[in-house]
């Protein structure tokens, strides 16, 4: 296809090809077809050059849509990018995607394709049916059908799809601090940057476009008697050379967060290629700059507001300023014959620009009765027909504009007053004035305020250290923009503590005189809105003026509710074009003013952002830190499978070749109780506690007594919250009179340390006690089983292992395998056990020695799963598995661990005495033995007394731990049963999802060795 809309650069009046490079042609594919463009093009400008009219189908009515805008505000031209599956990117605006050789893209809207769209028939037929709230009203019932509807709707409507393969690119984050962050590099932003840079302040200036300049890139105005582009080049060169300035192009400031924290999404290679594989070093595709700025200057400019008239969505209907942008910046005239509809002087420039391309300007339709501004005269002098006091009320054409209907309107713009005249054209450009791009200023909660002078919302009060300059303030004239930019740039720097510098006057800049614009947000039709042709307000979400009026008739009065009911501004464009018109229409139909109606708030992100950029390097291996014990490599070498416990990698079990999981667990369980097993217990939290009040402190945070625990002894303790509910447990040993070592659950270590610090720092700061995490200082090998003493005896000659000298719940210091060690005779299996703690660097050495010497005892390494089974055989709880924050020690049948006669009212004491905590029939932890010994009750199963009771059944509690016990030859389970401790021997039933019912008998939680003899040998 030829580029039929590309200006012949040599023939055009100003002989300028704008910012494209006609010596660098580029070929690309859109919707599978080849097209040509030039370096400097966007996909949108190239498609317009090639005469592509339709670029998608609308969301609800499936109407053909074309390119409307030339920047971030584009509602229709949303692309699916990517030549391969792995490089698919949805939701890219054609107006922002630069062209590169080999680019592949297609329209995201339109199924089966955008030219022939199945849904358009639904749209046409159901046009009047699909009113606002249509989905709510139609598809809500029956609810069971929603899933079916949703699939169809999504397929038909969606805005693209995510890749099905891993993204091969690298994304990263960079943290920055600066004195002044300037958002936007148009006239105001560039002037501000120049001013701030002079002061020596650290400046970051970011702009979403490929090059700095903003509106100046397509402007025909002059600065110092030269084209504005010359000024832009000069300032940009200055900024690039300044060591205190960071210039970020292709970088969208997407979020403005609390305390001047902003996120900038920089696209570094998206304009070069789909994927850059060959580079010597892999390039970062996108980067998120996370900036903390002393002051922020928003110079984000403004978006032109389209006018709302009948069939204003037919391809060929565009924003006036976008048409000028395509002509000047890309040398593209997006049609043959133009009608311009405007409410203001500025837009006349578009007609003038079009005239100079040599194509036909049919007429300018001005809503104002008697426009006399400088640009109006200029247009008239060129022979352009100006139809004043009139409006375009309807558009004809289906796949492209073929003409418009023009009628005179009254002064208020509410009524048609005259004949309807048709005009033939293929392009209708419209301008309803400008809406300041206040988005970022809203992100931290500031509400924009209506400015009647400029007919737009400007940034409201904010607590951020934020300044604004230029178009965002409704300051649209070049000279004023430059002056304001310079002045605010200075102020931003002085606010950040820098010295004021002299300011240029920009006296040579001559602004064109303009007359006031007319407030016109909804062009009337001869028919009432509800029967007029569709007048689109929000093109992306297919919200019409009639839809908004209907929403207010149905009782929606708040703009936030109208927004949600009609979906106004809910698209990926966040209603950049439609919101103000929509609010004005809402206000009018509620008989309120615009300030009374107010505006909806914009939220981050300003434009859609990729997940890659959000994640940065925090994915794969770097998603979360991993913690490994000193013996990890041994576990890996010996075939362990691992389980994540918090950030720790713990061996789960050690299957031998050909073993199932259950076979491995059975073997590990049997070997431990028969001879000796070995467990890596290094991950248990360890907190070193010292100070003269350490003992008293323990007594306050644990439920049991610590006053008499002698040096060399260990004790198990339960930790409760103030509500009396158990949240952690562990063994604490007395190392010295004022020195203790507390162990916590693996996952609870950090929380417990914080808990201790909280009470020490905020409640009992007069106590002298110090806490230190020593978890990583130690490596712990636990040997458990009847042969563990014999094994340890081979490796130590200075620890007296005699059963009467080194008793259960004693600890002692000595050497193991020649390494200094603390050995604790404590047991989580109910077997004779020794917990050997050595300095972590010796962990592997001692572990290997234990394995080597244990061979003759068939020493068997086991992991967390066997540990769970062995402890459950003994009825030992796991905090967090058998407790859930709603059970106190008595619920656990662990009243023995609560000391009622401590003088200090320890944490949890008052809580567990509350009325609800002492009532009968609380759920209590009991053992459960299935009728069929082979049956293992699934954890989480709910107990009932009578499985045949009609619904709702009387729920009794649930299973918390359940295993097959190879040692016992039957299943074992622990769980909660209402009043369970006094219901020993009773039957309960566990109905299963498949309809079966498991019958079980309530029993003691201690299934094995009820007298506890095995650990005392």
């Amino acid at each position: 296809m030829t580029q039929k809309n590309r200006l012949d650069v040599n023939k055009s009046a100003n002989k300028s090809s704008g910012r494209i490079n006609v010596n660098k042609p580029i070929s690309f594919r859109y919707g599978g077809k080849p097209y040509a463009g030039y370096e400097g093009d966007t996909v949108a400008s190239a498609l317009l050059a090639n005469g592509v009219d339709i670029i998608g189908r609308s969301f609800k009515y499936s109407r053909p849509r074309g390119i409307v805008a030339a920047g971030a505000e584009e509602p229709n031209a949303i692309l699916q990018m990517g030549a391969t599956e792995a490089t698919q990117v949805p939701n890219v605006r054609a107006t922002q995607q630069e062209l590169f050789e080999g680019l592949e893209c297609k329209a995201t809207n339109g199924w089966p394709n955008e030219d022939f769209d199945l849904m358009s028939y639904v749209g046409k037929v159901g046009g009047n049916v699909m009113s606002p709230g249509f989905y709510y009203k139609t598809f809500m019932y029956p609810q069971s059908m929603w899933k079916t509807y949703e699939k169809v709707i999504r397929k038909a409507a969606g805005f693209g799809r995510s890749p099905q393969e891993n993204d091969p690119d690298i994304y990263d984050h960079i943290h920055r601090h600066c004195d002044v962050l300037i958002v936007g590099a148009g006239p105001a932003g560039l002037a501000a940057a120049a001013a701030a840079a002079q002061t020596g302040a650290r400046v970051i200036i970011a702009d979403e476009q490929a090059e700095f300049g903003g509106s100046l890139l397509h402007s025909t105005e002059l600065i110092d008697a030269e084209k504005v582009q010359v000024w832009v080049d000069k300032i940009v060169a200055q900024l690039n050379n300044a060591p205190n300035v960071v210039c970020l192009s292709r970088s969208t400031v997407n979020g403005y967060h609390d305390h001047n924290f902003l996120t900038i999404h920089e696209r570094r290679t998206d304009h070069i290629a789909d994927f850059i594989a060959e580079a010597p070093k892999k390039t970062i595709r996108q980067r998120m700059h996370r900036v903390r700025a002393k002051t922020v200057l928003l110079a984000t400019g403004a978006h032109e507001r389209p006018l709302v008239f009948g069939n204003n969505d037919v391809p060929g209907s565009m924003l006036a300023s976008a048409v000028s942008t395509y002509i000047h910046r890309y040398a593209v005239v997006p049609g043959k014959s133009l009608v311009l509809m405007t409410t203001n002087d500025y837009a006349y420039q578009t007609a003038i620009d079009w005239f100079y391309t040599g194509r036909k300007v049919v007429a300018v339709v001005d809503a104002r009765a008697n426009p006399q501004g400088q640009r109006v005269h200029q247009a008239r002098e060129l022979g352009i027909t100006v139809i004043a006091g009139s409006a375009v009320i309807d558009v004809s054409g289906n796949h492209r504009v073929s003409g418009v209907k023009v009628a005179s309107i009254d002064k208020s713009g509410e009524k048609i007053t005259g004949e309807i005249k048709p005009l033939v054209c293929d392009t209708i450009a419209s301008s309803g004035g400008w809406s300041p791009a206040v988005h970022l200023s809203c992100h931290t909660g500031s509400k924009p305020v209506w400015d009647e002078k400029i007919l737009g919302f400007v940034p409201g009060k904010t607590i951020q250290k934020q300044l604004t300059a230029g178009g965002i303030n409704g300051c649209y004239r070049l000279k004023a923009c430059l002056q304001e930019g310079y002045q605010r740039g200075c102020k931003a720097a002085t606010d950040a503590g820098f010295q004021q510098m002299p300011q240029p006057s920009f006296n040579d800049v001559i602004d064109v005189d303009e007359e006031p614009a007319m407030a016109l947000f909804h062009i009337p039709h001869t028919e009432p809105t509800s029967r007029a042709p569709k007048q689109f307000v929000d093109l992306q979400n297919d919200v019409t003026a009639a839809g908004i009026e209907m929403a207010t008739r149905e009782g929606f009065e708040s703009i936030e509710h109208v927004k949600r009911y009609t979906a106004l501004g809910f698209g990926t464009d966040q209603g950049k074009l439609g919101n103000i018109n929509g609010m004005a229409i809402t206000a009018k139909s509620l008989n309120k003013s615009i300030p009374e109606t107010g505006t909806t708030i914009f939220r981050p992100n300003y434009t859609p952002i990729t997940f890659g950029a959000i994640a940065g390097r925090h994915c794969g291996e770097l998603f979360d830190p991993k913690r490994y014990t000193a013996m990890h490599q041994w576990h890996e070498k010996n075939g362990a499978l691992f389980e994540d416990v918090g950030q720790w990698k713990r061996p789960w079990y050690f299957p031998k070749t050909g073993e199932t999981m259950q076979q491995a667990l059975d073997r590990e369980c049997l070997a431990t109780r028969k001879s000796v097993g070995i467990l890596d217990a290094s991950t248990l939290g360890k907190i070193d506690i010292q100070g003269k009040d350490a003992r008293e402190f323990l007594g306050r945070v644990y439920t049991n007594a610590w006053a008499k625990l002698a040096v060399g002894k260990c004790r198990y303790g339960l930790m409760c919250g103030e509500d009396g509910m158990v949240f952690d447990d562990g063994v604490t040993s007395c190392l010295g009179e004022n020195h203790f070592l507390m162990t916590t659950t693996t996952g609870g270590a950090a929380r417990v340390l914080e808990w201790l610090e909280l009470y020490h720092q905020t409640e009992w700061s007069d106590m002298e006690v110090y806490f230190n995490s020593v978890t990583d200082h130690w490596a712990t090998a636990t040997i458990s089983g009847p042969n563990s003493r014999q094994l340890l005896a081979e490796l130590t000659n200075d620890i007296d292992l005699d059963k009467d000298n080194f008793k259960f719940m004693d600890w002692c210091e000595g050497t193991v395998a020649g390494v200094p060690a603390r050995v604790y005779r404590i047991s989580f299996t109910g077997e004779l056990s020794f917990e050997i703690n050595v300095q972590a660097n010796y962990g592997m050495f001692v572990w290997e020695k234990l394995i080597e010497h244990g061979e003759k005892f068939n020493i068997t390494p086991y992991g967390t799963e066997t540990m769970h089974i062995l402890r459950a055989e003994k009825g030992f709880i796991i905090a967090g598995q058998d407790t859930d924050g709603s059970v106190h020690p008595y619920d656990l049948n662990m009243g023995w661990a609560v000391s009622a006669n401590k003088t200090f009212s320890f944490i949890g004491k008052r809580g567990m005495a509350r009325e609800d905590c002492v009532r009968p029939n609380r759920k209590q932890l009991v053992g459960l033995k299935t009728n069929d010994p082979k049956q293992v009750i699934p954890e989480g199963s709910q107990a009932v007394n009578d499985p045949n009771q009609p619904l709702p059944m009387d729920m009794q509690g649930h299973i918390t731990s359940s295993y097959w016990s190879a040692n016992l030859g039957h299943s074992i389970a622990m769980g909660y049963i209402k009043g369970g401790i006094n219901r020993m021997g009773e039957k309960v039933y566990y109905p299963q999802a498949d309809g079966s019912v498991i019958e079980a008998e309530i029993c003691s939680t201690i299934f094995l060795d009820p007298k506890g003899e095995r650990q005392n040998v």
Partner: protein
Amino acid sequence: MFYIYCPYCEEHREEEEFHVVGQAHIDRPLDPDSLSDAEWAKYLYMRKNTRGLYQEQWLHAIGCRKFFNMTRDTVTYEIKETYKVGEQPTVV
């Protein structure tokens, strides 16, 4: 993302280093056992849900590990002041 001044470290640090604990200035009753269930429940559960200035407790978790207090506007998220445990707010 707050920018928080730690009154112990005496410098501003990123919010990622901190974590919020809850309403400040709730003292543990000196004699819990003498309180009625209702009084105890008030200490245990009842917290303000203030719109506007609010005193809350923070922890410089990945820093000095000290607890401190903050006066923060819950509407604008402006931090009016931070101060040490045991001190009283000057902005209320």
